[in-house]
Every structure is written in structure tokens, then in C-alpha cells.
């Protein structure tokens, strides 16, 4: 196992970097490709009690137990049936309690694109700041607008809130990747 790419901050400063784009409803979103662990097809999850609605449950990802978040529900979009082309993107977030892996359910993965940091425009501020602070910026890729997400803010904080982080991670699953 090489040094984990996650250690490198998903900085948008300087030069260009690669972004994985995916579709959710009518929008295209992008995340730093270095955060992506794997892409897998939809499979049934095990529900967890008392979880926020958008946390669907947990999956076995090669030995570690990984929570699955439905991004449609997170963004309060209309729900759709999970089908054979529904995709789970497994990513790493940095939380105050350290690195955590989680999967997001999206409609479909589109592409890996190069994004030049200079072309990233800040998201317009409308209404409350907190509603959009997980958006790193907007960028136009072949005539389409891609919303770049800050997954640490989007998910990391969610996880931290829903779990009441305690520093004591049980040893069993911590080392998988």
C-alpha cells in the first residue's frame, strides 16, 4: 500500500488537477479524484438505527464497514429507485477524528476531467452561507457547469455530528483501505 493520496490535501490551489464528475438529477458534480477509493455498483445495505435519513446504512468494503450516504437525499432531491446503473463512489474524508471512508450513492459516474484552478469560480452567495459552504466552486467543462464539492465539509461534518466522535477507534477495521 503506497502513501495514501488522501494525505495530500484536496487543494485547488495552483495548476490543474483531476476531478471525477458524476450526475445527480440534472446536475453534474465533481470531487477531487485523489479522494476516490473505488467505484462500485449498487448493492443492498444493512440499515443502521438512529441514523440521519440520508445515511442509508453500511456496506462491507473489503473488510471494513463503510457507511453509505444517498446524495440525492442529502441535497433534498427527489428520490429515485436504485437500479443496475446506480453507482456507489467510495471516498475518504478527513474529519476531526481522522480519516474515514464512506460511499455516496449517485445516479451515474460521467468522466474524469482536468480542471484548471484558475477557471474555478466561487459559488455565488445566496441566502445562508452554510447552505452552500460545501461547494468549493463552479467550473465549466465542455459547456456544462460542474459543481465542485468539498466532501470534508459535506460529509465529514455530517459524520462527525451523527456519531459523537470518540477517539477510540476499535482496531478491527481501522487499517483497511
Amino acid at each position, binding site marked *: 500500500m503506497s502513501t495514501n493520496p488522501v494525505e495530500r490535501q484536496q487543494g485547488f490551489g495552483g495548476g490543474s488537477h483531476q476531478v471525477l464528475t458524476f450526475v445527480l438529477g440534472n446536475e453534474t458534480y465533481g470531487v477531487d479524484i485523489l479522494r476516490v477509493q473505488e467505484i462500485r455498483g449498487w448493492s443492498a445495505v444493512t440499515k443502521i438505527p438512529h441514523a440521519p435519513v440520508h445515511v442509508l446504512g453500511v456496506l462491507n468494503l473489503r*473488510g471494513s464497514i463503510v457507511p453509505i450516504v444517498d446524495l440525492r437525499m442529502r441535497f433534498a432531491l427527489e428520490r429515485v429507485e436504485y437500479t443496475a446503473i446506480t453507482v456507489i463512489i467510495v471516498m475518504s474524508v478527513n474529519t476531526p477524528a481522522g480519516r474515514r471512508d464512506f460511499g455516496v450513492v449517485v445516479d451515474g459516474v460521467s468522466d474524469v476531467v482536468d480542471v484548471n484552478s484558475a477557471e474555478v469560480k466561487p459559488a455565488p452567495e445566496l441566502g445562508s452561507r452554510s447552505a452552500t459552504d460545501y461547494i468549493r466552486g463552479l467550473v465549466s467543462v465542455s459547456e456544462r457547469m460542474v459543481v465542485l464539492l468539498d466532501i470534508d465539509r459535506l460529509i465529514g461534518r455530517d459524520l462527525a455530528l451523527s456519531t459523537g466522535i470518540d477517539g477510540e477507534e476499535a482496531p478491527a477495521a481501522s487499517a483497511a483501505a
Partner: protein
Amino acid sequence: MTVDLTQFHDAFFEESFEALDAMEAALLKLDVGSPEPELINTIFRVAHSIKGGSATFGFSEIASFTHSLETLLDELRSGTMPVTVALSDLLLKSVDVMRAMLRAVQAKQPIDSQRVSDLQFDLEVAIAHKSEAEPAAATPAGAAWIVAAESAAGGAAPAAQQAPRWRIRFHPYRELLARGNDPLRMLRELAALGELAVRVDAQMLPALAEVNPQDCYLAWSLELPGEVPEDAIRQVFEWAEGDCDLSIERLPGEQALPAGAQDAPTPVQATPAPVSAAPPASAQHGAHPPPAPAPASPAPAKPEAPVSALGDSGSIRVSVEKIDELMNTVGELVITQAMLSQLGSHFDGPDAEKLRAGLGQLERNMRELQESVMRVRMLPITFVFSRFPRMVRDLAQRLGKQIELKLTGEQTELDKTVLEKIGDPLVHLVRNSIDHGIESPEARIAAGKPAEGTVHLDACHRGGNIAVEVSDDGGGLDRDRILAKARARGLVGPNDTLTDPEIHELIFVPGFSTAEKTTDLSGRGVGMDVVRRNVKELGGKIELKSEPGRGSRFIITLPLTLAIVDGQSVAVGTETYIVPLISIVESMQLKATGITRLSGHSEVLSFRGDYLPIIRLHELFGVEPRSRALHEGLVVVAEGDGRRVGLFVDDLLGQQQVVIKSLEANYGHIEGVSGATILGDGSVALILDVPGLIRAASMRTAA
């Protein structure tokens, strides 16, 4: 050439703590009067390496303290100072202080310098006392610069010059002292190897005003007889490697110190440094400032010295993370193998039999692999037991009791995680045994027992579990007093009679014991409920056997590992949950009439004369069940924290050992769930935590 030393801090702390444990153990074994040289060497080595390390890392307070300690130990080592009880107490206290200092430095917190300097003062007083006791050796330590009983001037035995000799050129760098090395000590060690000829080169010594007392300005040329093994010589300089120029060459006979003139053109006597020439007669102790009467003892123990003590038995240090990773991968393999086996059983055709044979082989190999990997995490329980000799000694002293501690089964291995958590409960039990169990010597003699009481710690494997036993030959539980207390507190009716197990149960009642803490109730006391809770959290149980006047025994049974649990799979709707077998009392089907409703919604069932609340898992976890009618499903009677409840589930599926996976690694804690596991088909099942479930359920009803 700056190296970031902080990267070595962790290793230094870890090694130092281990070394201190070794030092403590050696101190406890040390016989007053006739100390074993090897033990003293061990103790000395610990002090020395901590001193060296802390000086290197710039922990000056530790270095300074250990320096004083080392000076004292050196006196012990050379036999000029007898080992007394007071002295060994002092040394034990030094271990504590060093531990505290290391911890403080590790946590980047200030050192309790008052405590340190107090003890350092005591150490120095002890050293000073020694010199008073031996006026012959009154050479002040500071002035102990050595000059040789050296051939050219003094004329040592000419015979030695005929034989081959070692010539050692030892030229320390200035910072040698700051690195925690003491040339004086090294010379003494060399002197112990054989007849040592020393010539000092004081050429570099500046004028007194310019002398920095922390720098080393001297260099030496030394000669030793040829029969001394080269390794032994190199060992002396081992610690100074990199801090000095060192050359060791073998001279054939006939030419002892011919180069002396070049090496030390400045006559020693002419240097301003305080120098005292030792009489040539004491040639073999020439490097020994106080002409010690018993110099022979340290010598034989030297060659094998660095090996023992730190338990360097061909082991390697591996981070727990790596082992967990390995365990994880093996766990995955087990699941894959289970899937293949399931698949293989459906195959037909000419090669199906071969396939199944291969799969069977794979399964056996897998199991062995899993066991081996589990064993990597296992450590002998002596890691926990080793803290007791000191504790027992201190407590016995304080309480004026005579207590012998017997340890058996120290090599019994158990999982590191279990090991870390069993320490506190054991400390508690041992402390109770000493405090409340063992009587005073007078009372013991009056009862016809030997004045010295025994506390026995034993560990052994017992059918997939490990049993740890704390027993004593003290007075046992005083049932009348316990009963009286229980009656007074209304725990027991005034006319109820209780069996022994029921009485023993009382001491585990929360608050029962703590309330008695300050009284002289001989029943064991403080926080037995906490002990029991800790043991239960580890998935174990605690039993108590007591005989009045003969003593009592606490038997703790623990699982070998926390990584695996025996579980009962239950189905609720489409979900599967695992209930640990240890918390299940019984499973049963209810009749429609067996349920009582209290105030509308909370349901209770009658079970062996008790009424147990029913927890509907589907309600608590928000799952759609197959049936909501209690008599159509099953009720699992489970126990947690001393309370029993009925868990309503749809069905029981089967019993199996499951590997516990953390939910907290990527998600977080869920009330009522202790973890998750991966089933044979690769899906995830949650493992229930019965005490947590009870808490969660009572919070719901309260809300």
C-alpha cells in the same frame, strides 16, 4: 547535519518505560545484604541508557536526575556500598520519579521539579553518607581525575610488557559528557577487564577560566593485556560510538607504550586540572578513584550484560496497526473462503469432488492462518502481573501486614486489548485482598495461621477462555456483617435467609460496597460493581468463592480475544442481528396470554417468577418486522448490567463465531450496537450490545 530527533522520541519513551519495568522488577528481586551482581548491572544499565537517551534528546532534568542515580548505583555495583532496605526503597522511588518525568515529557507537560529535586537530594545524601562511612575513600568525586599507574613512570610489572597487548586510543569529542557518557566510568570498566595502563593526554585542556565543565577536553591512551577479548573492550565504548575517535589495535609483545611520548607530550602533572597520581601498587585498580576493596564482582558479569534485561529474545517490534491490517485481510479471506465453500457445495460434475476436497483443504488452512494471526496479538499475562510485586510490597508495608505474593501461569497468553483492560480490575481485587482479606499478623497468629499471608494470582486457559484467579488465605467474607448491612439498607428483608451465592452477589451491588469504604467492614468493598462491569465489558464474568477463616477466591473468566464473539443470529424483518451468546439467558415462544400490558404500552412477560420488560427490536431500530404479534415471533431473554429483558425478534437463525468489526472506524457509535460483522454472504450484520439496548429502551420509554 541537523537530524530531527523528535522522530525517535516515541521509541525512546517506549523503551524507557520497558526498561523501568525491568529495573523495578530487578529491584524487587534484589536481596538485601547479598545482591546479585547481574541484577545490579541490569538496574545500572537502565539508568545509564535513560540518562544517555534523555541527554541526547535534551531532556536535561531527566539526564541530571539519572546521573545522580547512576553515581549511586555505581557505588552499589562496585560493592563499596551495601544494599539496604532504605536504599532499595530510595531506588524504587527513583523509578517512580523517572516514570513520572518521562510521562510528563512525553505529554509535553512540566516536570514536577520539586519532587525530582527532593529525591535527587536524597540520592546525593545517600552517596555522601557512603563516603563518610569510608573515610579511606574520601577522594571527592569531582576531583577524581585519574592518572595512570603507568609503566614508563611507575614501572608496572615488566612481565606484562612481554605479552601481546591491546593499545586503545580514546579521544572523546568535547560533547561526550553532554551525550550522557562518562569516560571515568568507561575507564573503570576497562580496569575491571584486566590490568589497565592509562596515559592521559591533557593537551587540549584550556586555562581554568575557559574550562566549560560540560565539555570533555581529555584524551587517553590505554593498554590492556592481550588476553582480554576485543569484544569486551568494544562493548565498553559501545555507548560512546560516534562521540569519540577510537582506535583499538593489537600490539605484539615487547613494545608497551612506545608511542607514549608522542601521544602525551605534555606531562600529566603539569596540567592545571586537579590530578592525583595513584600509587603504582594498585595498578589493576588504577582507574578506580576510591581504591575499592571489592573490585572483582562486576567483571565476570560484563560480557553477557546487554543481552538480558530488555527481553531481546529474537523478537521484533511491530505496530498494532500492521497486525490489525493483517487480521483484516485474513478475515476477508475467511469470508471469501466461506462463500466459495457455499458455492462449491452446489456443483455437480466429474470434478466436483476434487473441487470440494480442495475447498476443504482451503478451509483448514484458513483456520490455521487465522489462528496464527490471532496469536500474534497475544501477549503473556506477565505484562499485567509484573506490576503487582511492587504494589503488594508497598501496601503491605503501609498496612503493617506481612504478605507473600505468589504468581503462577504468567506465561498464559491473551489478546493485547483484553490485557490492557484487565489490569485495573485485577489491581482492585488484589488491593481488596490485601486491605480487607489478609488479617494483621497478630490476628493471623491468634487464628493459628502463619503470620505471613499469601495472595495468589493465577492465570490459565480453560476451554477457549482464560481464567484469572485472585485468591488469598485471609479471613474470607464476613457473611453476618454483609447481611446486617444489607438488611440495614433494605436490600434484604429482615427475615429473609440467603444462600452463600446470594450473599456474595451483594458485594457486587453498586453503592453497597462503596458506602462501607471507610468502615472496617471486612467484606471486600470498594467498587466491586465497577470490577464486575469492566469484566463484563470484556465479555467475561466474575465468580467469588469464600470460606470464612480460610480466605476467598475471585475467578475471572475472559474470552481469549475481543476480535471474535460467539453469537446467535436473529432475524427482524429483512435484517439480521447478532446477539452475543454470553448475554442470552433463554429463548422462547410466547403464548398470546403470557404477556401483560402495563399502562397501555409497555409490555412485560412473566419469566421464572419475574416480570421482564419486552424490548421490540423492530421498534427500537425502526425496521419493518414480519409480525408485530408477540406470540408469532420469539423472545430472547437477555441479561445486561444485572437486568433482564425480553428481546422480541422474528426468528432465530443460528449460532456462529463472528469476527467483530468496528462501526466507529468509519461511522460512529450507535446506542445498543457494539459493532458489526460480515456474514458468509458478504453482507453486514450488526452485533447487539444488550446493556446498551436496555439503556436505549429505557430512554425511549422515559421520553
